[in-house]
């Protein structure tokens, strides 16, 4: 079985003037299809940097990254954009939706922007996804009229629009109240279970980690341990 993500020997060093700061050192991560993995660590441990590298938003100083069997670490900007659009999904903590667009437009945006417009099939797919995240009655609402939890659910739907192999979520519940956070987590677990979509969730919230099938903990830029938990 081909791993969804196979990252080997990932190093990341930032240069600030004459000062070099090593953020990640010799990271090896493998994600199999259908996994729901929590990436844990304290602030500054390098988890967001690792997520950005896996999401092709940042190029590592060293290391090899294979996603869905394809080497990606040396991709050009255009290749990275195309790959992110077609094979990856993103959910962020803040600024997740485009405020001037409706919920359905936000969901369809990744497909429409690359496809040259919103076709009927895109609209149908976006509509189905919004129904699935429980927002069929909010499709025509502008993003600014949605609550925090609704926005994150729209963001989940958008991340799934192009049927990605891997969804990367950076503190997806960090800005939500407990009830909304639980709804969002339940939704991601449901999609993971029913569709087999692989999730890598960057979080410092132990409650989130407990709902994942596996946890990877980073400390000072290195993997501290890798615990393959059962489903909680």
């Amino acid at each position: 079985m081909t791993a969804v993500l196979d990252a080997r020997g990932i190093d990341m060093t930032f240069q600030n003037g004459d000062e070099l700061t090593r953020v990640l050192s010799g990271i090896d991560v493998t994600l199999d299809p259908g996994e729901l993995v929590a990436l844990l660590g304290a602030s500054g441990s390098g988890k967001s940097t690792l997520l950005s590298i896996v999401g092709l938003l940042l190029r590592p100083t060293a290391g090899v990254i294979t996603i869905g069997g394809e080497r990606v670490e040396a991709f050009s900007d255009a290749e990275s954009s195309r790959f992110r659009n077609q094979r990856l999904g993103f959910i962020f903590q803040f600024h997740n939706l485009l405020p001037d667009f409706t919920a359905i437009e936000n969901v369809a945006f990744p497909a429409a922007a690359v496809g040259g417009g919103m076709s009927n099939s895109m609209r149908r797919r976006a509509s189905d996804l919004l129904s699935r995240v429980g927002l069929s009655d909010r499709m025509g609402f502008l993003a600014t009229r949605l609550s925090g939890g609704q926005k994150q659910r729209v963001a989940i739907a958008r991340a799934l629009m192009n049927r990605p192999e891997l969804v990367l979520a950076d503190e997806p519940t960090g800005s939500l109240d407990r009830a909304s956070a639980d709804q969002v987590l339940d939704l991601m677990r449901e999609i993971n279970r029913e569709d087999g979509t692989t999730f890598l969730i960057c979080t410092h919230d132990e409650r989130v980690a407990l709902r994942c099938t596996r946890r990877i903990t980073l400390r000072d830029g290195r993997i501290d341990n890798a615990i393959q938990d059962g489903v909680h």
Partner: protein
Amino acid sequence: MFAFLVARRYLGSNPWQTALLIAGVALGVTAFVFITALIQGLAVRLTDDVTAKSAHVSLEPPDRVARILPSPDHDTEAVALVSMLQRKQIRTWAATVALLESQAEVTAISPQITGSAVLVRGEAAAPVAVTAIDPKNLDAISPLSREIVAGDGRLNANGIMIGIRLAEAIGLSVGQPVLFRTDRGIERLLVVEGIFKSGVQSLDERVAYLSLETARPLFVLPAGVTNIEIKLKDTGQARSFAAFVSEATGLRATAWQDRNLSLADALTAQAQTGTLIQIFSLISVLIGIASALSLSANRRRSEIGIMRAFGVSRLFIASVFVIQGLLIGVIGASLGCLAGFGLCGWLATFIRPDGTLALPIAPAEGGYALVFLLTTAGAVLASVIPARSAARLDALKAIQQ
């Protein structure tokens, strides 16, 4: 095109700011249209004032020069001197008129004898510039008959028509005789048949009209004329037509522009001033667009970061901002052209008592196509800087902000 939808949505998200931006562009375009229409109108009025009452092309005999005569004996030289007393004339004027009549661009031809004379009445005497014309073509070059305030312009055998100031100066009225003495000393008693008032002081006190037949014996030109005046359909073609006639006839042909070089200089200076004002108004429009879109790009950094994260290309991001510039340019230029046309049209309704426009504006000459194209192209160019900066945004940094 999805980028078009995004651009439109961005512009619509802040309607007041967009409206102000478009109003700024429209105002600049209106100023451009107004200045262009005013300068064009002024040029047309000045040109019309000059060309309506004068010939567009004047034909005169070529300058005579002394010639060295060929001699079989090379030791001696013979020179044909030029008589300074002999009046220059066009002897073959009938053939020249026939040639001119065959040219489609010619609207009027007036063979003339011009010279100077003195009018004497009692002890009063006044110098006059004489123009002898064919009375049947009285209005060929200048609308003389409209300017006659007493008598008529039939110009019979002993008739003369003079300006109103000249008539007042030496106490003449229609029907009265006056002694006409040419620069060669030839005298004849003429009768005032008409008095005109052109409104131009120098003409009203210094010009007299005779018929060609009356003038011939007085100026000792039994067959020739001194000059042929021509009117054209298109005054702008005067120089090229003058060159053509000069080549065809050997006569000296002078276009109206070359007789009024100070007017040409004034028109050029006026056009250059107008161009500078137009350039500055366009530059201010473009700076406005560039700064507004730069602010928009900066305000939308996080959104651009999100778009880049889910794989939207840099080209798409750039095109969203270029399309915004295009829309602002097209809408602003269209509204500005409409407002400019309306303003110029309104100003053109103010008429002086003499029937001329209070402000010499030409609403149809506002340079609408030019300003529309320049503004639209300029708006697109102005949007390139913010578009590039938006497209170059680092997605990660933008999201983290």
